[in-house]
């Protein structure tokens, strides 16, 4: 879906959570913010929208919202063509 073409990163630590990123199950560090999620996956923060559990999360909140176990996160590219 307007999905970012990124391969989810898998970091092996002792404190991991399982969630769904763009339809793929991934393991991520438990203290990762939404901004951190983009950085880890080399996604341009200024070019996407993030949907968590079917709700758009405004960009101003990305630094403050942490990924939670079992979250369903979709990252959509901004499109403006017509």
């Amino acid at each position, binding site marked *: 879906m307007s999905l970012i073409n990124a391969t989810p990163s898998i970091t092996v630590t002792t404190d991991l959570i399982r969630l769904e990123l763009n339809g793929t199950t991934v393991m991520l560090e438990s203290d990762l913010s939404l901004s951190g999620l983009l950085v880890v996956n080399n996604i341009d923060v*200024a070019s996407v929208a993030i949907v968590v559990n079917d709700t758009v*999360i405004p960009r101003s909140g990305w630094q403050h919202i942490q990924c939670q176990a079992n979250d369903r996160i979709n990252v959509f590219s901004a499109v403006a*063509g*017509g």
Partner: protein
Amino acid sequence: MKSLTDREYQQYSRTMLLNDIGEAGQIAIMNSQVAIIGMGGLGLLVAQYLAAAGVKHLLFIDNDVVEISNLPRQLLYTPTDIGKPKVTVAKRTFSRIHSDIHIDAMNIKLTDDTIKANLQLITSKLADVDVVFDCTDNLPSRHVINQLCVQHQLILISGAISGYQGQVFCLNFADQTSVILSGCYHCLYPSHTHIEQNCTQQGVLGPAVGVIASMQALMGLQHISSTLNQYGVLHCFNAKSFLWQQAQMSRDHQCHVCKPMHISAQDQGAEYVTN
């Protein structure tokens, strides 16, 4: 218009067979006024659907000319139209096909500067518009249109597509509760958003444009006939996998574009409760 002629009954019978639309909905469609900004792939198709459905007053806004690369997806333009202003060609063509509709055409690009320079004219043209369709091809125009819709408390139906990715949503700025819940275009894509690819760079298939345009027209007709129940929902379409995804849009509490309305709504709500 309060009633339909016999010919109109026949012409719009399939629409009116939908129980929730009926004759009242068809009359509402025929009494409506819409603005379509951007007369490219999306805008042309939206206009075709609306005019065919019975919308009698359409405002076209665009400053582009027809180019040869437009022809595969902008279906009403022909090779002889190349180099001519899109709004001029569109107005001429629609007037020929639908002799009983009124089309207003503005050959202008909506920017902060052009809006300031033509504020009275633009305000008067949007005053009685029921729906604004954003069919433009760039982010700055989309922000300007969003701001206009917020300020004038209009219905904004925004469609966009590039490559295989399409997005469409309807925001109701006339309903402040809806604004508080769903925000505005700026809440979704702030001003500093970077568009990595557009149609010029990434390409697009005509039918994929048609899917998004159809959704915009569908939302518009449902809003006008009071049968739309999904405001503030972002619909994302993947034209490769043919999958749709939906998400509830959210207001950004730091958004300066829809903030005044938000505060106003809270105040009104508080006053209502107090009284």
